[in-house]
Structure formats: structure tokens, C-alpha cells
């Protein structure tokens, strides 16, 4: 009888503990090591070819015309490059759990949007490597760091191409400048903590923020620090945007800041209901900022006063994009809103049908969306229809 009771008790405890572990790892918002880092690459390119990084660690060149016709992949002008890594630099792994994005064997996650020059496509990976690929063939031109196992720490923000140099921030706390043609290391600048945002460059100054709550002003020429960093009240969560003589960014204290780029003084701050995670859009005297409080705010760039706000159905993680006189915004749950820039009036809503965290990209009247299902959606703004969708099936 005792043995039976002990067995039952042991079974109950085991089931409960197993439940704890499962609910802790994979429950809503649990944040365990399982499905954590999947990436959210955006798009770059033109109406002939768009480039995107998939959640399986592939860089794709897609021909929108071929995708709209439903032709087999790869079609004319299309290619794929599968990034393979022997180990993980930024993601978590252990003896019992696979490294990198879930259990995908190629094991590379891409957060940053590919950057395109005249003949190369650049991609930074969460596993701490930068790749330069031929934009026509997809052949590897160079990789940094050069050695197979060597990494520089997880790259979460976008790469920035400026004057023949690739600039990027890494989770190892360093800003790197690489020669865009050769991948040669030009300089590096060490901050006090990891960098998860993109640098912004204007007038030969690299504006970059680290999780040490500082905004740095670094020379794009040689990586020297040009002025004392601006101490922020909280960590910067959105990538900075430089427009005119101001730098705009959101921080973890739920504010959107405007900082004078000449004297580094805070001009104004605007408080939202949560973090301004996505990079704000600026046009004329208006800033459009998506917030994790499920709102899109239009703010006067001069005064920081709210002009209008629009309530979405979920948090805004993706960067919004301008489409003609409209602004396209997508919520995390996949509702795309087309709003009037002047009034915030809702012109149209299009359901993507899946969660979206990647930045939007627009060419002409087509908005490209990268869903959490790893599908690329082509959305015709005029008709309000998803005209095509495509997912590369990993081998």
C-alpha cells in the first residue's frame, strides 16, 4: 500500500513538475530557451528583386513578378544563400537544447534587414557574422569575421551602408566599420554593453546607443569618440533616426525622445503607454511612431505635441512605411492599417492572417510583409488584397 501511494505521489509530482517546466518554457510570454530567437528580417531591393532573410537562415532574392505568377523558385533573377554556422554566438544553447533558432539544423537567425549596394547584398546574423553576397548570383563575396568559428556577438540591428563602409553594432558591445568591398576591418569602438539597435549616420558622425544607457557620437572616419556620450534615463529600444538637426528614438521608460544632434540636449520627450520599439518615421514636421501600447502616434517634430493617434488591435513592433499619401502600419497580430498621414483616419485594413514583427517595405503600390510564419506577402495597397505569398521550403 505504501509503495502504491509512493508511486502515485511520485507520479503526481513528476507530472506537476513537467507541467511547470512546459508552462514556464513555452507558455505565453514565458521566454524560455525554446522558440525564442527566430528573427524578423525586413526587405530591401527594387521592383525587380527584393532581398530578405528567412527564419531558417537563408538569404533570398525574390522576383516579385515571378512570385505573383506563382512560378517555381528559383525563377528568373532569383537565388537563395543558406547560411551555415557550426556554433551559435548570440543565442542560448545547452547540452539538451539545440543552439540557434529552435532545432533548425542550419541554425542561423537573421534580425537585420539586408542592405544592398550596386552589386552586393549584406546580411548580419544573430550568430555574429556579416556576409556579403553577389546581388545577382547570391555567391559569397566575403564574410566577417573570416574564420569559420569566429564570431563578433549577436547582430540584432540593421547594417548601415555609408560611403563604402558597412557600420554595425554587436551584442559584444562594439561598433564595427568594415570595408564594403572587401570586408576588411576598418575600426571598432567599444561601448559599455550590448548593442541591439542600428547605428544612424549623418555628417560623418555615427550615432549609436548601447544597453549601458548612453548615446555615443563616433567619427565615421576613424571610430574616435567626438563628444561625451549622452546619458539617457533608460535604455534605448528603437534605432535612432536622424532628421534635420534632431535625433529621434524610443527608450524603455516609455518615452520617445528628440535630441539636438549639435549639442546633445534633449529637446522634448513624448510619453506613450509602452515602449516605442519600432524606428519612427519622419516626414516634414511630423513624426510617426508605432508603440507597443497598440497605438500609432503622429507627433509634431518641433514641439513634441501629439497631432493624432490611432488605436490598432495589437502592439506595433514593425517599422511603419510610407505609401504615397498613406502610412502603412501592421500590428503584431497581423492587421495592416493604411492611415491618412494628415489625420490618422483609417483608409483601409488588410488582414495578413499571421503575426508580424518584421519591418514593412514598400515599392510602388506593393507593401511587402514578412510574417512570423516565414511567408513573404505581397500586398496590393490599391486593391487591399494579398496578391501573392511565398515561403521557401528548407531542405
Amino acid at each position: 500500500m505504501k509503495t502504491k501511494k509512493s508511486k502515485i505521489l511520485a507520479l503526481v509530482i513528476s507530472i506537476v513538475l513537467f507541467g511547470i517546466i512546459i508552462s514556464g518554457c513555452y507558455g505565453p510570454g514565458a521566454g524560455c530557451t525554446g522558440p525564442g530567437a527566430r528573427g524578423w528580417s525586413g526587405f530591401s531591393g527594387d521592383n525587380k528583386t527584393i532581398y530578405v532573410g528567412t527564419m531558417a537562415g537563408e538569404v533570398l532574392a525574390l522576383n516579385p513578378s515571378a512570385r505573383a505568377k506563382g512560378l517555381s523558385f528559383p525563377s528568373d533573377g532569383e537565388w537563395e544563400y543558406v547560411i551555415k554556422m557550426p556554433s551559435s554566438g548570440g543565442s542560448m544553447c545547452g547540452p539538451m537544447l539545440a543552439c540557434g533558432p529552435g532545432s533548425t539544423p542550419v541554425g542561423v537567425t537573421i534580425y537585420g534587414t539586408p542592405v544592398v549596394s550596386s552589386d552586393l547584398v549584406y546580411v548580419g546574423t544573430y550568430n555574429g557574422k556579416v556576409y556579403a553576397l553577389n546581388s545577382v548570383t547570391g555567391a559569397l563575396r566575403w564574410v566577417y569575421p573570416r574564420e569559420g568559428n569566429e564570431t563578433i556577438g549577436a547582430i540584432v540591428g540593421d547594417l548601415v551602408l555609408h560611403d563604402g563602409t558597412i557600420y554595425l553594432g554587436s551584442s559584444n558591445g562594439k561598433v564595427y566599420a568594415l570595408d564594403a568591398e572587401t570586408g576588411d576591418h576598418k575600426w571598432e569602438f567599444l561601448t559599455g554593453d550590448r548593442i541591439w539597435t542600428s547605428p544612424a549616420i549623418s555628417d560623418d558622425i555615427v550615432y549609436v546607443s548601447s544597453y549601458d544607457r548612453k548615446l555615443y557620437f563616433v567619427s565615421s572616419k576613424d571610430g574616435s569618440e567626438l563628444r561625451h556620450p549622452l546619458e539617457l534615463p533608460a535604455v534605448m529600444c528603437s534605432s535612432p533616426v536622424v532628421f534635420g538637426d534632431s535625433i529621434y528614438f524610443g527608450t524603455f521608460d516609455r518615452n520617445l525622445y528628440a535630441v539636438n544632434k549639435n549639442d546633445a540636449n534633449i529637446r522634448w520627450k513624448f510619453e506613450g503607454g509602452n515602449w516605442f520599439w519600432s524606428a519612427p518615421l519622419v516626414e516634414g514636421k511630423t513624426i510617426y511612431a508605432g508603440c507597443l501600447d497598440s497605438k500609432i502616434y503622429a507627433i509634431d517634430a518641433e514641439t513634441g505635441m501629439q497631432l493624432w493617434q490611432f488605436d490598432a488591435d495589437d502592439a506595433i513592433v514593425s517599422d511603419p512605411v510610407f505609401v504615397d499619401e498613406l502610412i502603412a502600419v501592421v500590428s503584431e497580430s497581423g492587421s495592416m492599417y493604411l492611415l491618412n498621414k494628415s489625420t490618422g483616419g483609417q483608409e483601409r485594413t488588410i488582414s495578413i492572417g499571421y503575426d508580424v514583427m518584421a519591418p514593412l517595405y514598400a515599392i510602388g503600390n506593393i507593401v511587402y510583409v514578412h510574417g512570423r510564419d516565414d511567408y513573404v506577402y505581397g500586398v496590393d495597397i490599391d486593391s487591399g488584397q494579398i496578391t501573392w505569398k511565398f515561403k521557401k521550403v528548407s531542405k
Partner: protein
Amino acid sequence: MEVWNIIVDAVLNGLIALSAMVGNNFGLSIIILTVVVRLILYPLTVRQTRSTKVMQELQPKIQELQKKYARNQQKLQQETMQLYKEAKINPLGCLWPMLIQLPVWIALYQSIMRALASTPEDLIQLSQSLYSWPIVTQALPLDERFLWLHLSKPDPYLILAVLVGVTMWVQQKMVTPPPTDPRQQSMTQITTLMMPLLFAMFTLSFPSGLSLYWAVSNIIGIIIQYFVSGGWGYLKKPSSAKSPPSKKLPPAEQQSKVLKGAYQEKKGILKK
């Protein structure tokens, strides 16, 4: 589910605020919160420990009854219940405190997992659980370094795995009586080893912040067990299955009650 999220969010924000108060040291805040929670639950833990202890002390008598009424299950149940009644315990009573504590452990566990937010996706998910308290917003992101550990990653030196496994084994060993039946010996040994080994294996893969919580929780459990039970319990006693049952005698008062009951019952049968 909504209520559950409110509880987890409260623990999560408390943990982050605590971290800010102790100099942005998340490892220290995990230890402090674990200690605080275990102190709050101390009365329940003591009750559970005592119930478990009495239950174990009654085991020899229950075995006697099992032998005696091997062919009369109904009588066996009656006598067993009578024994529990005399000892003033509910056989399921020792489970209730544990069941009440479980939601607290789960909430603490999930809060640690959420707060560590090691990936960008996790960080966005975390934002939905945070209060607008300045102390919380300014504490983020948490510094994951603590001693030799990166709290969002497994301990590379396996120290925590050993610590979690050993402390859990000690805790179990303190309350697990050595089997009187040699046939049960291997089963008991496996049961005693299974959970520590399982958790040690989890520790190899899970964030060390969580392993830290397990280790601290186990150590506090051992301390409580030590003082409530008055020593190391069965950890220091011989675990040989060959030991006669008489070496694990319960307190004399309770034993006499059982024997007295058995004697009176026997007397009644003879009279009939």
C-alpha cells in the same frame, strides 16, 4: 488565465524592482525573493514537514497492520484510518501544503524566465507584463551577470548542476526512510535519485537564473527540514534494507497506543 497572469506579472515586477534596489543585481534579487517567498510559506512548509514526519513514523505500524490483515482489506483500511486518527493526521494532509505552494513556485519560476528575456522576441513579450513604475522601466534590461554566471545561459562549469542535484538529493534523503523490505530497496533508491538527476540534467540546459532559484530553494528546504525535524533525519541513519524494523521505531508513546489497540482487538476476538 487572466488571474494567473496578474499574479505572475506582480511577481515579475517585484523581482525587477528588487533587482534595481540591490544595485541592478538580478542574481541577488532571485536569492532574496526566493528567501522571502519561502519565509512567507514557512508555516505551510513546517506543517507539511511535520505531517510527513508523522506519516513516516507510522509506517512500521502500518506494515504490521498490513501483515495482520492481509486477507481482510476492509478491516485493514479501518485500522489504518484509526491509526491516522489517533496520530491526529490526515493521510492526504501532508499533500495540501505542497499543493498550495506549487502555484507560488510556478509563478516565481515563470517570472524569472520572463524577466531574463534573452532574445529580442522575449524582450517584446516582457514589455507587455511590465508596470509603468520608473524603478522597473529604468532597471531594464537586467544585468544577467552574477558571480561566474550569465543568468540567461546554462552554467558552463556545471557547478550549479551539481549543487542542484546534491541539495535536492540531500533534501529527499532527509525525509525518505530506508526501506524495511529488501525488495523495495532498489525502487526507493531509484526514486530518491531520479528527481535530483532529472533536475541536474535540466540545469545543464536551462538558464542559470532558474537553476540558482532551484539551488537556493533546496538549501532553504534543507535548513527548514533540519530545524523542524531536529537533525539530518534519514540522511545520517543507516539505509540498509537488512536492518530490522525495530531499529526504526516510532516514538514510544505512539507505539504503545498501537500495541495497546492491537492487544485489545486480539482480546476481543478471543472473548468471542
